[in-house]
């Protein structure tokens, strides 16, 4: 556990060192975003009585820096901070601090030539009132994309994601509940029309999933870890809601539209549908939607 956290910190440090401006083609730019959204199943629960919805507000800022290596390749470094605020379940309010580095390569300079990227992202998650959820995430991603025409672009990719719990009390039951490993494959398409970008992505993810609800026999038998959820509370009959980790497959569909207000600002609306088929016959789905105003400056 400590070794993995040490690797995480070393990765962040390396990203910072590599990110020090050094080339003629240094290109810093900054992104700001504010989103309002609705999630119809914040606990990823299966039973109707456990399904809770909430609205949320997200504010984010990131500093980005392009280190252009040559005509064909470059590395984009990003430092980001994000705050997510829930309307009712404020224990789930949290901030995210992260660093990422993405190497991009386009062997051919022509318009429709494919491009490739390799990226690594590390984040720290700190919740308002959910010790279980505090921790770190690490993700490595490989992606390829191509413009087919001046209106259509496609991309495919693979990613591996690890979430590490941050606890000072090792060995306690359930303290590692939110330690998860997932691998995903995705395919996406963008459609450009005037000031609009219509986009969609399908993601298949396999690995650990976490759900919150009453501890039924089915859940207890199938789960790898289980612990009283410290953020979502009890149901209307005062039954404890439990967070549990299962092995499962997740199907995620995203569709959205981005409307460019100017070269520096855009409105973005996304709908996400998630369906999980987990061990022991556990299944749940959720939908979320969010509308954001994005701003970029240099």
């Amino acid at each position, binding site marked *: 556990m400590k070794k993995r956290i040490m690797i995480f910190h070393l990765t962040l440090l390396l990203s910072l060192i590599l990110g020090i401006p050094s080339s*003629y*083609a240094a*290109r810093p*730019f900054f*992104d700001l*975003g504010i989103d309002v959204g609705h999630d119809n199943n914040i606990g990823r629960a299966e039973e109707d009585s456990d399904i809770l919805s909430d609205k949320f507000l997200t504010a984010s800022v990131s500093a*980005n820096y*392009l280190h*252009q290596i040559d*005509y*064909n*390749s*470059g590395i*984009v470094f990003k430092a980001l901070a994000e705050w997510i605020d829930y309307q009712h379940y404020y224990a789930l309010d949290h901030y995210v601090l992260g660093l990422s580095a993405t190497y*991009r*390569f*386009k062997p*051919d*300079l*022509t*318009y*429709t*030539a494919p*491009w490739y990227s390799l990226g690594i992202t590390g984040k720290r998650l700190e919740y308002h009132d959910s010790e279980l959820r505090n921790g770190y995430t690490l993700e490595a991603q490989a992606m390829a994309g191509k413009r*087919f*025409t*001046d*209106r*259509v672009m496609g991309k495919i990719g693979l990613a591996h994601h690890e979430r590490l719990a941050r606890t000072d009390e090792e060995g306690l039951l359930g303290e590692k509940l939110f330690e998860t490993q997932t691998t995903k494959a995705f395919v*996406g398409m963008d459609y*450009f029309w*005037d000031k609009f*970008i219509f*986009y969609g*992505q399908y993601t298949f993810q396999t690995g650990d999933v976490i759900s919150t609800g009453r501890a039924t026999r089915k859940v207890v038998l199938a789960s790898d870890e289980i612990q009283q959820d410290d953020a979502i509370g009890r149901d209307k009959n005062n039954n404890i809601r439990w967070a549990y980790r299962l092995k499962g497959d997740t199907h995620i569909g*995203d569709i*959205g539209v*981005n409307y*460019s207000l*100017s*070269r*520096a*600002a*855009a409105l*973005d609306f*996304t709908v996400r549908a998630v369906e999980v088929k987990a061990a022991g016959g556990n299944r749940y789905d959720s939908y979320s939607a969010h509308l*954001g105003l*994005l*701003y*970029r400056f*240099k």
Partner: protein
Amino acid sequence: MTERNNPNNIDDPRRDFLVKALAAGVYSAGAAIPGLVVADFFGRKPEKLPKGRSFYRIEGKVLVNGKAADLNTVVTANDKLETAKGSKAIFVVGQDAFLLKEKSQLKLSAKEKFKKRLSNKVKKKEPQKTHVAEQLQDSALVNSMRLVKGGVLTVFGKSEHEISTPTASIGIRGTGVYFESEPERSYVCTCYGITELAASDDLDSTEIIQSKHHDAPRYILKDAPAGQKIIPAPFKNHSDLELMLLEELVGRTPPFAVSGDNYSAPRRGY
């Protein structure tokens, strides 16, 4: 005659419909309308335009020498192009490709030769840049153009060009450049290559820009003290993707492939 019935009114809504239909090729002989609609929906792979073709894309109302343009209209080096609000034209003349933004007027002209009237002065003031001034003077045949208003993104072949706006004169060689023209100022971004900027009415306001990737955007002001009319400006209103598309239309590529998204509008990662 009312403004609505004026045949030269580029914003007449009936004209808008006709021009859009023409641009879509609806009235072309033998046009297979469903095929065209499908092709337009999915877009096109940008590639070098065949001989005799000038326009790659027309959106909205575009006039060439005062007449509505369609995809079969040929643009020559002495034509005048005009776009209405919300309109856009992407076209090629020789080895040069243009993206004319909305509400723009561009007058093209072919000249036998032009002399860079500022080059000698620049040579005296900045001896280290002499070779650039000399390079700019060496050309034998030059196309010139005047951007009366609006904006135009251009990529040029090897030959030398000159663009003028109400406040500026710009000498160009083998370059991608974006210009905007307003009554009180002009905007020039040398996306890559070499340009020589000068204020129209001030021989002391000159600058040679040698850029690899949007390195030094500039405003050229109408009302500013002599020698101080060229000032730094932000990057704005054009993108690497547009440059790539234009270069593709004339069979070239821009000198970069990776931009890190910093020259496009923001969007969410998902």
